[in-house]
Every structure is written in C-alpha cells, then in structure tokens.
C-alpha cells in the first residue's frame, strides 16, 4: 500500500509507507538500521542483526523516494511486537515517527492482532504514552546500553479480522494490501488445470 501520509501543497515531500516486499527494500531497511544503530549509536553488529530478521515483517518509509525510516514487526500469539524503529538523522524534523507508528498499528490491526507491544527507550516514554501505549508493568530493563520499559496498545480489530473462515484468497494477498485483490487472484483466470495430477497418480500405483 503506497500511502500518502502527508497532505497539502505539492512542494511538501512525498511520504510513502509500505511493507518491505523485495530484497532491495529489505536491504534498504538493514542499511538504515546500520546507519542509525551501528553508526550513530555504536551498537555491535551481532546485537543489531540478532537472528530475528528472517522471521519478521519489515516496514519502510520513504521521503520523495529516498529510504528514510524503517521498523521491524514480529508476530507473537496474541500481540505484534514493534521494534528496531529508526529514522535517518536528516529526516528527524519531519514528524515521521507518529504517522509511521500509526501505520504500523493499522497494519497489525488489519492482520487481526488485538495488541501492539514494544520496548520503549526511557527517553521516548512520553511519546509512546501520547500515542496510546501504556506501560505493561513497572519493570525497567536494559540491553544494548539502553534502559527500556514494555508498552502495549490495544487495537480494535473489529469483525473483518482474518480468521480461518475468511475468504482463502484474502489470506493469500500481500499483507499490507489485504483489502485489495492480489496477484494470485489474477491467476484464477487461468482456471485449474491441475498440472501435477498425472504425476500423483503414477506415484500411487
């Protein structure tokens, strides 16, 4: 979903948010994190790339087509965990964070997750609280040199949340475009020729 977040006059930068869906976009996401976490915050490489990147969804935000911010979402049973959120230094005055977190929450909600969860750096707590997140308890913990608290925000999934009885072709759609027909729905025009049926029969005999 290429979504225009900003409105107004045309000389404002065009902000686009989407799910990273190609290796190029994934690469952009990883490089933004390297720039901010490894370059600016001196995070060690192996802490930044912790092994969870290949079981997560990655969100990308572009300013006039240039990669500007990214976020990683991991999927647990009852909640989605937002993490590794970065905005490149040169874009930090653009007010991107709140619209980006909103987009992420909306993404989780449409996938049927009733709760978004995150570990907030202590200095950012007021921002998360303003954005509807509440601390889950009083604990403060630390990793990679920063102090964190766990926050959660309830999401109103409504009746359209995907379930096992949802139209199967809706579940096959690209995950950031669950409300629009996807490429596999186009493939339905080709009909069902069942090209491997013969092979299965041979194996059965």
């Amino acid at each position, binding site marked *: 979903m290429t979504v225009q977040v900003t409105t107004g006059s045309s000389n404002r930068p065009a902000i686009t948010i989407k799910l990273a869906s190609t290796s190029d976009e994934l*690469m952009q996401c990883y*490089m*933004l994190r390297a720039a*901010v976490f490894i*370059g*600016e915050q001196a995070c060690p490489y192996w802490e930044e790339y912790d092994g969870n990147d290949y079981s997560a969804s990655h969100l990308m935000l572009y300013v006039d087509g240039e990669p500007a911010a990214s976020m990683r979402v991991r999927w647990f049973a009852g909640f989605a965990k937002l993490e590794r959120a970065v905005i490149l*230094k*040169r874009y930090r005055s653009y007010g991107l964070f709140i619209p980006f977190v909103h987009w992420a929450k909306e993404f989780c909600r449409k996938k049927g997750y009733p709760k978004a969860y995150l570990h907030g750096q202590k200095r950012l707590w007021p921002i998360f609280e303003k954005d509807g997140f509440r601390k889950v308890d009083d604990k403060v913990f630390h990793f990679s040199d920063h102090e964190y608290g766990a926050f959660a925000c309830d999401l109103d999934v409504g009746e359209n949340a995907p379930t096992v009885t949802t139209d199967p072709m809706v579940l096959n759609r690209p995950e950031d475009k669950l409300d629009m027909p996807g490429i596999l729905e186009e493939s339905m025009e080709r009909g069902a020729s069942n090209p491997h049926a013969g092979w299965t029969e041979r194996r059965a005999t």
Partner: protein
Amino acid sequence: MNTTNSIGGQPVTIKLAMKMEDSLQAFAVRAACFIGEQDIPYSEEFDGNDFGATHIIAYLGEEPVGAVRLRWFQSFAMPERLAVMQRFRGNAIGELLIERCRQLAESRGARMLYTQALPRDIKYLEKHGWRRVDAGDTGKGPKRVVAMTRPVDPNQPLADADAPDAVTVRNESQVDATGLPLGSNRG
C-alpha cells in the same frame, strides 16, 4: 588468506565477501560510516555497482569493523568506498584493506590501482605510494575528487601514459550507454 594483526588482544582479520551475509556486513559498515556518520543519501551510497564488484571486510574478532569495494576495469583495479567504523580508526585497518586489494589485483595480473580521493585525503594517500593523475581536479564544489594511481608492484612504477583518463564514478550501465568513460568528452 587472511592478513592478521591485533587490537587490544582481539585479532584483526581481512577476508573477501563470499556469501550474502558477508556482503551485508560490508554494506552495513558502509551504511554506518557514510549514511549514519557522513549523511550521504542511501541512493548515492548504494549506486548500482555493488554487484559487479569485490567486497573486502575487516573483522575485529567477530565484529565487522571495516570494508572496501574493489571494482575491476580492463587496465586497472579501483578500490573505493573504504570505510572503518569510527571507534576503530587509527589502527591501520584501512591500510590492511587496501593491501588486500593490492594483493588481489596482483593475483589477477592487474598492474595499476586507481582511486578517487577527497582533497583532504591526498596527503595520506601520497604517503602510501599513491600519485595524482594530473594536477587538475576532476570536479567542482564540495564533492570534488582527485584521481590517484598506484602501481600494484612497487618495483614497477607506472608510466605516466598509463594513467586512466579521469573518471569512472558513473554506474556501469551509464558507462556502457556511451561506450566512453565519463570525462572523455571534456572540451
């Protein structure tokens, strides 16, 4: 095939990128230094030439701390995008990376290394055997660069005529589009 010394008891290792993960480490070091530290836009840093080049990475223990990209031309090899993480500078990691470039170029029969340097780095490079191609700068404004060369074998100095004409900063598809190196149409 590793060059080794050590910093604070941790070994410094140089290796060629051979796998996806290796390349990502080289890219991450460059993103940290060029995008994070020097504020270069992503699309300039990752310019389309990364998949026709050789990437060399420096590790301190397990940690990727430096990288250089080596591009191959018919008459020279071109080390560029040399990066060492800020907190590990001053340990000659850059020199190890360039030396690995030189060895690799030698093993492939190349006779010349060519690079483009920022004016502030010229003195440093001259100390390490690089010479300016000509006295003139190849560009204007804050991003002007100076073309420099170095013989692959220090015992076989380059004839002046060997120096390539200016610049190869364009990405390769653009070089191919004209069939001429950028700069050859200078008046």
